[in-house]
């Protein structure tokens, strides 16, 4: 099982939108996928009409080695499952700090699903915390949506510094531009400059489009209700760029995509 985490310290940059759409596309390509909604707000679950749970005490949750299996919910789409957010996990940090190896706990939990899925997508809350350190530890790749604004670009640079300082392999970072408005001069300039400074950036970006915005109304991946729209096409292109980068079969030989 390969693990992708969608991460950025900044909020509202399109992390959840990317998680939901990429995981959906991966399942269409024939991979068995699971989304782990680690943001207690439960946005990823919302898009799949699955309510957050509010049950487990975080300590007990972290101790139960095979607990994640029981938390899995099927979505409306074949091959795509979701572990909904848990409202009881707002203070997961504190519970994590009680463990002897506090940064590997979540990865251990996820490994219980090793045989059941090919790909896991972890949707993260916009924080830098013990939870994020767990995420850095368990993820094979960090998908980092970056909005073309100076602040957001700086936040990415900081993540790069953090990664160097904390032994997080830089090759794990897969930034891509999100919510791009090509009519804006500043966006275009920033994108060009960023690509020069950060060759690791994925060569495909997500434009700001009303269809992606509508996901909130439709509560579904954009491809399911606006296939062929610029937003849906952009996510498909991003999926292909991602696969090419990490050497994954993108399933493009399958008849029904794009």
């Amino acid at each position: 099982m390969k693990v992708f985490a969608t991460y950025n310290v900044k909020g509202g940059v399109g992390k959840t939108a990317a998680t939901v759409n990429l995981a959906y596309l991966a399942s269409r390509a024939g991979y068995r996928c699971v989304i782990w909604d680690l943001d207690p707000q439960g946005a990823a679950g919302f898009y799949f009409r699955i309510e957050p749970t509010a049950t487990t005490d975080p300590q007990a949750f972290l101790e139960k080695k095979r607990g994640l299996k029981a938390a899995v919910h099927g979505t409306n789409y074949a091959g795509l499952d979701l572990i909904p957010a848990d409202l009881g996990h707002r203070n997961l940090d504190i519970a994590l700090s009680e463990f002897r190896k506090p940064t590997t706990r979540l990865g251990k939990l996820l490994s219980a699903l090793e045989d059941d899925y090919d790909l896991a997508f972890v949707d993260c809350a916009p924080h830098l915390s013990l939870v994020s350190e767990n995420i850095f530890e368990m993820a094979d790749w960090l998908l980092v949506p970056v909005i073309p604004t100076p602040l957001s670009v700086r936040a990415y640079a900081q993540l790069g510094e953090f990664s160097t300082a904390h032994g997080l392999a830089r090759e794990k970072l897969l930034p891509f531009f999100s919510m791009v408005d090509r009519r804006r001069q500043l966006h275009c300039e920033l994108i060009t400059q960023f690509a020069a400074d950060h060759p690791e950036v994925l060569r495909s970006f997500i434009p700001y489009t009303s269809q992606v915005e509508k996901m909130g109304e439709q509560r579904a991946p954009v491809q399911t209700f606006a296939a062929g729209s610029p937003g849906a096409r952009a996510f498909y292109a991003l999926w292909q760029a991602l696969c090419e980068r990490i050497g994954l079969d993108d399933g493009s030989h399958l008849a029904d995509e794009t």
Partner: protein
Amino acid sequence: MSCQFQASPGVDAEMLGTLLLAQTGMQPQGTRRIERCYLDTFDHRLAQAGWALDADLQSPYPPVVHLRRLGTEQQDQLHGLTSLPARATDVPRPRLRNQLTKITAGRALLPVSAGEITVRAFDCMDERGKLTARFLIETSSESPASTVLRVQAITGFEPVGQRVIRAARRAGLIKPLREDCGLFWLKKLGRAPARYRPKPIIPLRAEQGSSRALAKLLRAYTQVMQTNEAGIVADLDSEFLHDYRVALRSIRSWLGALKSTIAPDLRARFRAELSALNRATGELRDMDVLGGCLEIYLAACPEVPPAAAAALRHRVQSTREAARAALKTHLLSAEYQSAMQSWGEFLDALGRGKHAGRRGRSPVLNTVCRALRKRRLAILRFDPVVARHDPETLHELRKDCKKLRYLLEGFQRLYAPEALQRAVRELKTLQSAMGDTWDLHVHHELLQRLVQGDSAESPPDPGALQLLTTLGERLGSLERKQVALVDAAFARFRAPRVQRLYARLEENRT
């Protein structure tokens, strides 16, 4: 909780549909008429391993193929297929491909059965529009009285499906299906695949007359041969011929080992006919095996130029094709049919106590024990020193071991299982130490023949000659290595402990 159900007598698809629609949140998803096709290897390896591979065909769409655990709705869709997979290697997803490859071991995936089925789908949604269960009602116009209900639970929402099922069961509308829905349909459509075992285990009684017992065994293995004929003729999978020949070889071996149980004239006649059949099927089998190994050999000889390799491939292919055509003609010929018929009649008569030889009426256990002893002593006569210089000696040992193995396995029901298992295990150790350099030998000769066959018109291709030399060298070094291994294994087999084990079997003491 089971997930496949059969409608009770008198309940049809309409009634089940009405029941489903009465549930809150149930949304009909339409009706499809499909051709449901079940795929398996000719010897039903998937079913034996607990899997069902089914394809739903609805033109003009590509087939929807699922790999399912038998009796469950846990399934994986095999994405990206534009036609039915002919072999596990045609499956695009690596995980499923590996899984299937392991189970099918290279055998072809054949449509074992198909029939037209009507599928009505219903999705159950909660108030948020979340899918919580999917129901499929399946009927067949060919078998109108049977209706199947399948429940595809959505993980985390299982209670929804269970609630509906409980209600339907309380109302007496459905009962659990005792077998997988796939098998259920095959049976209803009258197309259940016959049970097949390449090496049937035959129940025998120790005191039974030898000729009758032998007839029973021979008949079962003749059946195996006949089951495989159609597959050989249609050239669906080389394994049909493999199984055919294993059965034929077993029959010949038993006929030889228990020869005194049959009237000498008849035994001689059928012995001759069966060895002719062995020869008639040998060429194609050789080419099948050579064809399978050719790429490995070529990869080991990178100095063979591509053009020569291509010519050789072509030559092997066309020789195989010729052998296949010849065998097909033979199997369909009146001569073969009538030979098999008189063989069958002979076995029937033998089973009724006719044509018995000198020892035909003595208890089968005694006869088999004597034969076992004879075979074992033949193996003990093997001289490892001679084998060092003479591969034929090694090959003779191999054949003797095989004969002993056939005796042990064919008449296994006469022996206590543990003693038999231990004896077979010891024999297997010896057999695997001998390896199979014989194939290499045969291939070396075959290639020589093929290369020289070419040279009738033109001088032999230097590339092919190079291949022959390299193969010859490899063969020599493999054989030298093997003789050393055989030395050790043979010493072990000769040890008093193993010999006592066999002696006890032969005297029928356990």
